[in-house]
């Protein structure tokens, strides 16, 4: 399985809003902790190591360093 980088969410705006809602009311540290848990949950759901490696590379590259 290769990493899906083309649109794959049925309702992108809806998901984005849900993501923000999950962070609402949290401190900076609590938000970062939530993101960490979320990453682990999603990584396990994906399961495929090659796709995960590609996702790590893309995330790092998009940050510019």
């Amino acid at each position: 399985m290769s990493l899906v980088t083309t649109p794959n969410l049925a309702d992108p705006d809806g998901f984005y809003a849900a993501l923000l809602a999950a962070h609402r009311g949290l401190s900076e540290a609590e938000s970062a902790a939530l993101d960490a848990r979320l990453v682990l949950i999603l990584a396990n759901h994906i399961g495929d190591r090659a796709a995960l490696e590609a996702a790590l590379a893309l995330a790092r590259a998009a940050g510019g360093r």
Partner: protein
Amino acid sequence: MAYSHRPFAYRTPPGVTAPEPRHAVVIVGAGPVGLALALELAGQGVPSVVLDDNDVVSVGSRAICWSKRSLEILDRLGLGAACLAKGVTWTVGRTFHREAEVWRFDLQPEAGDKMPAFVNLQQYYVEEYLAERALAEARIDLRFRNRVVAVGTQADHVRLGVETPDGPYALEARWLVACDGARSSVRGMLGLDFAGELFEDRFLIADIEMKAAFPAERRFWFEPPFHPGQSALLHKQPDDLWRIDLQLGRDADPEAERRPERVIPRIERLVGHSDFRLDWVSVYSFQCRRLARFVHGPVIFAGDAAHVVSPFGARGGNGGLQDVDALGWRLAAVVQGRAGAGLLDAYDRERQVAADENILHATRATRFMTPAPGAERRFRDAVLALAAQAPFARGLVNSGRLSTPCVYPLPGAPDDARLPAASRPGAVAPDAPQGAGWLLERLGGDMVLLGVGCAPPAVPGLRGVAAEINDVVRARYLGAAPRALLLLRPDQVVAARWVAAAPGDVAAAAAAVWEGRA
């Protein structure tokens, strides 16, 4: 009761009064690795001189967890029964976060092996058994209070300077095996680089004596209420001794932390009372480092002298005994002229792979336990927070991945995809019941051609063994295949296997082993 360290007798070595002839093998260090190697060589018919700067076994329990593979090796040396009888057998580990159990493993859920997954036994007992055996062995010249202070390497031998209570003397050896521990003076004298990672966190390691009904399980806590923010380990040993590891953090003062008035309250909070005796206390910081190569001309490194790991996973002493397993038969063959010195390169190659594997696992576990501030800490805490709720996260909780023997990469080894992974080339032959005994008791020491479901054909230089078929043998050696032939090295590692093979194929595979190619 506290262990009493009886000193071994010192005798004036012959070299103090007259030059000694060049020895085939001199081993520096009578720790578990040096002693086991001397016994392994003696079993192969090779005499050795063992030099140790001390005259007592390990002060402090140090290594307590001996793995199944170590027990199998010790069994081959005649010490399996003693270790099993004295040691505390365990297979279950439980990991807690705060108050909740988040992960439980059973290292040996199925029967079929002579040896259990782990036995807890203080290093001083293991050394005592090994030393008594070595002292009784005519081929071993074990010299206490002989400190190596100089090493001069030539192309084909080594000259040693040794200090004793009777003064200094010189010794020559065709092969020098440095088993002189983590601070190896041989390594230092040769000026070899010992590269790797040092961890800043300090750990309090203590043995206490108490009567307790806790089961013989490994119990590990992250951030327990009795030791907030840090990790803790509790493990049972013989003689009503309990091993306690308490993480102290980066800023702990090792001198202050060693003092009983500091240690005792910490332990009281863990065990919930003060009815115990403090037997041994030490404060450690840990490292994962290794030599780039373990064979340097006539000098060979094994055990902690070659590589050190943090203790989470019990890979230090167990890894060292596996070095002995990989080295003994090869060095014996070289000394006896049955193989060229190139065979030792195979030891070097295989044990580097194993050391890297041990360092990888030990480093990951130490990092999980002592995460750096920032992302490392955040993900560690995320795993622990999820573990109580989501089964997948339990597999990420890392309190140490316990020692298992390395499966050596043997890319050219004959193999058959129909046969099960458990006995693939490079792996230690799995044990199985055989009548009233065990399969591993019938293997090892020499090269064996094992027939499973068939009689092994006669091949010169190989001892044929026919396995009795039962469910364990079928699962571990046959899978769906009707029969199998396995070539087993003297260290019980599978060198090659076939469903059907001509004697010529087998002989070629055996030749590859002796040439260091498998």
